[in-house]
């Protein structure tokens, strides 16, 4: 096996992994603060992809240009969803939350099916067929763009939680809900913002993914499953862990595809998940409960 082949495969796996990481960021952020597992994660991603598709085709924008609009719309959607629906179930048992979000997922998937039909839709960009060439290394232009923006989005999210007052307040809620209430923080509002930020992340990831993957309503299950693998690998609730988990999954898929067989890629991701659950159940960067 040539060095050139390994180099290109590792680079492709790394770039895909960063996009995977962004995909899982929203899921991790929501769980980290609210302890709610968003089972409608993949379905929200598909809705975001359709949003980016509609804006791109309607307004003649690229998915990257459509990203801020999609993220904003998804923020509002997430905010309202949390405020008026999920908030009522925060104290409910986990299986009730699971059923609620599964219901939301079914509505979103079938709504997409009704609106857009079963056909796959994509956006054609000039860059879709182009690559950057560095000697023997070939980097897919679209994937480089998506990975770069994924890194940027993750950094912005981290900065939001680290440096803004709202971000600090959200972290305070996550650390000690009672204490946050005692000092006068509006928990309901902060939770709604968190859910909004999480879905905005999903919106950003969806816009970027539209450049790489053709969207159809039944894509959601794959995304939800992949999201869970990544955040469990990286550590539920850890933003850095989500990115690391994405990169690990992207790289392992690439290497297993080349060393074993491409059709075993998914099996390898699940194998890794089981291994991490056995050896380090809190995930690579997760805190022990």
């Amino acid at each position, binding site marked *: *096996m*040539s060095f050139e*082949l390994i180099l*290109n*495969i590792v680079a*492709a*796996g790394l770039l*895909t992994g960063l996009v995977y990481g962004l995909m899982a960021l929203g899921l991790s952020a929501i769980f980290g603060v609210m302890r709610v597992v968003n089972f409608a994660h993949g379905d929200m991603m598909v809705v975001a992809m359709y949003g980016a598709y509609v804006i791109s085709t309607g307004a003649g924008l690229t998915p990257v240009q459509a990203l801020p609009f999609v993220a904003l719309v998804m923020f509002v959607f997430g905010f309202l969803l949390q405020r008026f629906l999920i908030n009522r179930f925060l104290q409910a048992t986990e299986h009730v939350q699971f059923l609620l979000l599964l219901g939301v997922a079914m509505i979103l998937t079938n709504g997409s099916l009704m609106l857009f*039909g*079963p*056909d*796959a839709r*994509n956006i*054609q960009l000039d860059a*879709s*067929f*182009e*690559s950057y060439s560095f000697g023997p290394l*070939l980097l*897919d*232009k679209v994937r480089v763009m998506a990975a770069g923006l994924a890194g940027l989005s993750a950094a912005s999210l981290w900065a939001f939680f680290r440096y803004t007052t709202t971000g600090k307040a959200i972290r305070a809620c996550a650390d000690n809900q009672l204490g946050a209430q005692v000092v006068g923080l509006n928990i309901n509002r902060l939770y709604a913002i968190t859910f909004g930020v999480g879905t905005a992340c999903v919106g950003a990831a969806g816009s970027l993914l539209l450049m*790489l*993957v*053709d969207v159809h309503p*039944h*894509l959601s299950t*794959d995304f939800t499953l992949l999201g869970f693998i990544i955040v469990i690998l990286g550590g539920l609730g850890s933003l850095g862990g989500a990115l690391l988990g994405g990169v690990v999954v992207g790289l392992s*898929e*690439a290497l297993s*595809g*080349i060393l074993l*067989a*491409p*059709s075993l*890629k*998914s099996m390898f991701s699940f194998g890794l998940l089981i291994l991490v659950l056995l050896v380090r159940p809190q995930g690579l960067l997760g805190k022990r409960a």
Partner: protein
Amino acid sequence: MSENTTNPSHAISRRQVMVGAAAVGTALAGGRFMIGRANAAGPVKVGVLLPRSGHLALIGQACQRGADLSLPILREMGYAVELINADTESSPDVGRTQAEKLIREGAHVLMGCFDSATTAAVAQVAEQKGVPFIINIGADPKITEQGYKFVFRNFPTSRMLGMGGLSLFKDLFAATGITPKTAVLMHINDSFGNSMLQGIQALAPKLDLPFQFVETIAYDPKAKDLSIEVAKAKASKADLVVPVTRLNDAILLVREMVKQQYSPMGIIAPGSPGMYEKQFTKSLGKYADFCIANNPWFDPKQELTKTLKAAFLKAHPEESFELNIGFTFEAVMIAADAAKRAGSTDAQPLTEALRTTNIAKRVMIGGPIQFGADGQNMNLKSASVQNQDGEQRVILPLDVAEAKPVFPMPDFKARS
């Protein structure tokens, strides 16, 4: 106690009313049924079973266009035919239920169903009920190997597809004087992909193909990214890429080949969908050109093909005129032809007439439509169809070719 019960000899009980109503209803229904059956000159009712929703919806709807367009054309040709449409929802169970429903609604003959699993389920229903069933598309050989008496298939079996598809490789090399030495087989890892793989592995030595498969790469049917697969294929340095795909993965495959600057001598599908479809040329533009698909195809020189194509392009200018439309059109035509010759829409004479079908003026490439004792049409041929300037053109067999083959294909980078 009411008067009716006290004087039963003069009263009519509720039960008697119900029995009477049932009797009248049965008589009326039976009468209508009898009239329907006795009306030999009436149109033949074709129960159309297609996957118009579900994961095969795109193709099911394409087939439906072929069925719908057949009505005015067949009327012009002097046939009387009516369609009763049903959606199989891409599910064999729904297909079975819908077939039974169509028979209850008075379908004289069933037609469908695109996918082999649903087709096999409907074939069982047709056989149980004694209603003729014409398969428009469905390649599993087993369907016509069960000894069924009412099942007729005007579509090649997967073995015929494989044989027809592979033998055209040698014809292409002979026509262009270029013979590649190595090939990489890339196939979707599902039942269709694996049956094609087995067929190719079994047939390749028999056909004495001039090239060797240096690598076989299977990939997940749900793959959203084929970068690893294409990198592996590129590393094999094979002269030829032989893909067994469906539509979306065919697009992913070629897009990735362009990105990774892997430009082999040719990309030739040995008998699978994807590369001849409009979505493929629409998504890939100039990069879709020069891909070759060896499949059953329209005979561009038949008058009926020209009529159907003109009607299709008028009704659906945005859609792709491909083999699903042609085979579905022919299936309805076969039913109409049999009913006309039988002079009846009864199952028995209709089945007898189907058995003696002999239609020379047809749409698809091949000899006259005739069915063997097992109900299979053996006079079907594959053609090599190459994308040229965004259009699908027949390049082989030479007797029906409408364009010259371009092989080796121009490098992706050199396409302006």
